[in-house]
């Protein structure tokens, strides 16, 4: 028995390494560098990088801004849910308010156009989980996160809340259209 006994060679840091270990360390090290630089590479060449543009806000301020914006771009009202359907212009702002237990309003975007999507919560943490594309972003109260999105496929999407936000968490689901 041995790994449970003190080593006889006192200076363990002088203990020679084995060739298997040496080879593996080199390989693993190279792989770790690839892992690291892949993230950097994607920031330069990739098209999916989460924006970090953030402002501190308050529930009142965020709601006021979102409502003013919606008043301007609402195109119709969804019959089933009663939510406004809002179609912002290309390159414009889009807002989604997360609160217990709904997403407000319904966005109508266009394929290939780019939008500045503002996310914030009026109460607890919520999760913005866009399905079925599967993009997941944390929504934190007090912070307004501005994410630039470019839908690449038209269709009907759902926004599922995937951060636990209390007893109605599993009822928190919204909608988003891409023309």
């Amino acid at each position, binding site marked *: 028995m041995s*790994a449970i006994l003190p080593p006889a060679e006192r200076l363990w840091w002088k203990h020679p390494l*084995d060739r298997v270990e040496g080879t593996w360390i080199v390989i*693993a090290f190279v792989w770790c560098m690839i*892992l690291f630089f892949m993230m950097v590479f994607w920031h330069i060449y990739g098209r999916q990088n989460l924006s970090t543009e953030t402002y501190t806000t308050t529930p009142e301020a965020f709601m006021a801004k979102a409502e003013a914006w919606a008043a301007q771009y609402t195109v119709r009202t969804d019959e089933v849910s009663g939510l406004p359907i809002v179609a912002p212009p290309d390159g414009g702002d889009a807002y989604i308010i997360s609160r217990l237990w709904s997403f407000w309003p319904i966005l109508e975007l266009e394929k290939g156009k780019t939008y500045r999507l503002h996310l914030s919560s009026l109460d607890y943490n919520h999760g913005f989980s866009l399905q079925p594309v599967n*993009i997941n972003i944390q929504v934190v109260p007090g912070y307004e996160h501005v994410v630039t999105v470019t839908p690449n496929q038209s269709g009907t999407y759902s926004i599922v809340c995937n951060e636990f936000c209390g007893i109605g968490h*599993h009822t928190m689901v919204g*909608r988003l259209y891409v023309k």
Partner: protein
Amino acid sequence: MSIATTYRTCPRSGLQFEANAEKLIIANAVAAVVFLLIGGVLALGVALTRWPAVHWLQADTFYQVLTAHGIDMLIFWIIFFEIAVLYFCASTLLRCRIATPRIAWLAFALMLIGAVVNNYAVYKGGSSVMMTSYVPMMAEQSFYLGLILFAVGALIGCFVFFGTLVVAKRDKTYEGSVPLVTFGAITAAIIAVFTIASGAIILIPTWLLSLGVIDKVDPLIYRMIWWAFGHSSQQINVAAHVSVWYLVAAVVFGAKPMSERVSRGAFLLYILFLQLASAHHLLADPGLSTNWKVVNTSYFMYFAVLASMIHGLTVPGAMEVAQRQKGYTRGLYEWLRRAPWSNPTFSGVFISIIGFGFLGGISGVMMGTEQLNMIIHNTIYVPGHFHATVVVGTTLTFMALTYYLIPTLFKREMISPGLAKLQPYLFGLSMYFFCLVMMGAGTLGVSRRHWDMAFSGMPMAYEWPGAAYLMMGLVGISAVAAIVGGAIYIYVTVGSLLWGKRIEGGAASVASKPTPLMAPAAVAQGYGSQGFAAPGTFVLAMVFLVAFILYYFVNWKYLSTVWGLS
């Protein structure tokens, strides 16, 4: 100063136990198993509710049970057991008395009271906030108070461990450097101090908030510091279970570390770089810069991943070298075929090593990649990943260690050795499958911590693809199999303690025997002096690497198809 205590040497294992340390190790390990039992019962509720065809519990009960499951397992089961491991690695391996046994009992009492208070808060209702308890969602004040008491107790336990190292040094109970396993335990304890301090920094203000003493804790700062506690404590687990892997390699095979320098160096990397991992949970958050995310999520260029990849090679490598010296040299894998597969201590650890690496390690690096995180954040992929690390990795390793300790520490013959033989396979392999299908469902986007994937009655319900339902059904089935495996562990260990035949534990003596030194390893007298000492392990490592590379780039491919984000 001499303190009246006695030592006994176990006739089977040759391990020497000091009387006070022995009682403390037993108490902490027993408390751990009690929480594993509670957590396991709760797991049944969680799993049978997430199995769509069964959908057992009501929503409020489900969230309550899930909160308790997370805390009882991840915090109470694991940390009680770790304190036992720390005391073992100091007092037993260094053959010295434990420092300040009274204070160690105080630590134990605080942990136990804290755990009970916290559990009571959750069961009473009003604290179903999940173990993460993100503000501004608030639990009852006793929820936080319980966690704080527990943390203080665990912190004191760490200091008793450090004190014991000092005692050993001063009383010269060993020569030279501490054994590798103790070195790993020191790593775990150092990380634990950092971790628990972070826990205190965030939980104390939150407790004050729940009492109305202060009026705001920033939600984003909460997340950052909470995860410095929550994630870094997973690094305690890694350091602890890797130490136990070395320990089991030593006691089962008489294996020596291939190279002390490499293994210890890898532990040092943990200390240097593991602390940064709270970033893993903040990659999809607002407010943090890209540079901060990239540097921290990668533990500064993946040096901690490097360390784990090293341990993943050197532990089985040490076993291989030991087996080859016994003459099992045919082919690449005679050493492995001739391993004691019916000894649950070995099979548990081996299943743990493979599962931790292939399932937990690869998925962890994938989801910890800044951009890739967006396709799994808060999906059920996340619990899929961490059941591979903390259940297949840590829990199964601790189970395997328990089988070794039953005759040595608890002085009992194991009851139902046949069941014990089966247990690591049933528990480990069904957990493999459980993790895989959770990751599968998560890749399809299914949310974690979610009571009703059907969104019944909701006008805008999202309909998950059929494959997602299939995966969640398989989650339920494999969970039941794993829970049966867990129940067998509890039955065998608790049963052995209660009804196992008592065995002779060695006479008590007032003098401690000195710790012998390990003979120099035959392997590494010089670089390559043994040729290529562990070719089988090396091939296994290459298979691992290929799986890693493929899976990693498949996910980049997947990411490249989603909406443009900038």
